[in-house]
């Protein structure tokens, strides 16, 4: 139905968006690639020439690399585990008939809208502070010694903080998916004598599988990039240095741009592997 005229008009309308995104992607990306093969120390001699793949090797063999991968995996895995398991339970609960469902939904979704720096500082001080935090009060009330959360259980603490931010997101998406489930199917299964557990594992869970996959992929991409929550709580100390934070430190704190850029290339590759899976799902959805 589209005419030649409307086709060229369409191309012109699309051009600005495509152009700015192309520039936004290509310029910094090629600069990062360029820096990654050079010895570049802005404060100590500047650009000292081409070094081949040396930065890539040094980034991998530095003592901070594997711990940062471990921390990253722990944080991503922990946040996913908490938000998916509790997200499913909460979504099922919120789908049940109750009074004031709208208000509960608002309460549950609220943490997602809190600025990351606020989230991190409120948890760090008002909850996890070993002297005056709520947890310290609670521990003392039960006669236990308060825990110094951010230094004795640092990764767990960061997971808790980030999970609090992302649980609402998972819940909301899973709830949306559950609400699209045909309730007659569940009723039929109930009449045929299927137990609640069987109904959950053979009807609800398969129905949710796509939503769960999407939550996993989107959260992984965002949690891999977590920055502010570490920046204002531990500043990367106590083993909370993720890959993202390690690259940030190499680039801006120790101003070793070549090495940091090599790390950046690794991060980009990692994110792209995940992105391919996400885009397959999203792409399939475009066809129908």
């Amino acid at each position: 139905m589209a005419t030649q005229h409307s086709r060229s008009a369409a191309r012109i309308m699309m051009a600005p968006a495509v152009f700015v995104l192309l520039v936004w992607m290509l310029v910094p990306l090629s600069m990062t690639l360029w820096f990654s093969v050079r010895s570049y120390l802005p404060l100590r001699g500047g650009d000292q020439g081409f070094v081949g793949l040396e930065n890539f090797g040094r980034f991998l063999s530095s003592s901070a690399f594997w711990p940062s991968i471990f921390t990253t995996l722990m944080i991503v895995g922990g946040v996913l585990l908490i938000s998916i398991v509790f997200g499913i339970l909460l979504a099922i609960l919120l789908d049940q008939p109750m009074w004031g469902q709208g208000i509960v939904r608002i309460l549950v979704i609220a943490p997602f809208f809190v600025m990351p720096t606020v989230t991190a500082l409120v948890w760090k001080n008002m909850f996890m502070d070993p002297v005056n935090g709520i947890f310290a009060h609670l521990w003392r009330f039960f006669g236990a010694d308060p825990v110094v959360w951010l230094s004795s259980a640092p990764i767990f603490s960061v997971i808790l903080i980030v999970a609090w931010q992302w649980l609402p997101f998972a819940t909301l998406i899973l709830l949306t998916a559950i609400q699209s489930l045909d309730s007659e199917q569940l009723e039929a299964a109930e009449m045929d004598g299927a137990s609640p557990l069987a109904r959950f594992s053979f009807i609800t869970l398969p129905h949710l599988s796509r939503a769960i996959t999407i939550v996993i992929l989107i959260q992984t991409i965002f949690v891999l990039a977590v920055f502010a929550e570490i920046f204002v709580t531990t500043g990367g100390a106590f083993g909370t240095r993720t890959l993202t934070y390690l690259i940030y430190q190499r680039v801006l704190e120790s101003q070793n741009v070549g090495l940091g850029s090599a790390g950046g290339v690794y991060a980009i590759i990692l994110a792209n592997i995940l992105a391919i899976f996400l885009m397959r799902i999203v792409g399939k959805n475009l066809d129908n």
Partner: protein
Amino acid sequence: MARSVSTQRKALNTALAWGIGFMIFFPILWTVLTSFKTEAQAIANPPIFINFDWTLENYGIVMERSNYGRFLTNSVIIAAGSTILGILIAVPAAWSMAFVPSRRTKDILLWMLSTKMLPAVGVLYPIYLLCIQLGVLDNRFALVVILMLINLPIIVWMLYTYFREIPGEILEAARMDGASLKAEILYVLTPMAIPGIASTLLLNFILAWNEAFWTLNLTSVDAAPLTAFIASYSSPEGLFFAKLSAASTMAIAPILILGWFSQKQLVRGLTFGAVK
């Protein structure tokens, strides 16, 4: 058909859901309550919930000490500016992809999505360097442009999913009646697209307001928004819980209210239309 449930069961659900909802919301509630306490009451053990001497003192101190107004202005300019600029660029693009799709439309959409997946830290130094060389480090306009670029894929996608729901028959009917392309856009499509555009605007304003990688790394004084204002409280200084709470409450209150209106759009926007 709604299943009939006993009142007892409904009461149980209600109690459980409210209990959990309250627990999840508690840190926010606690922050707001603490902001009205004195510093001594803020750390009292056992904690005081309601019956403390309500005071506005902390808000006064925070505003006086840190020039809250400037941070707020920066946040509003950066969030609103990047959202509006993004909408202006995205509306024509999403429009043409929804109504004049070609073979490549799907590829372009997915490619746009892939730029959103680019980890910010991977391009931190290039952007930092470009800002220095263009003389726009710690500049509000630079942040408007950068946050626009970060959120542009989401804006295009959201608008695209909304536009696609507008039935094409209406366009055909308008064309049959002799409407020009301009008239078609102005009088037929725009009124139908307004709700979608409004939701997109709202969600992206929230995302830009809370963005805390570029705003922390590319600002120091002049362009620093509320994310940076709060980060300045990361080194503790004596008793500061009540002041931290007051500052936090001021930073999140406007967005919490907007957020509650946008929870439905959140799902569509952040799953790129894959879950509706």
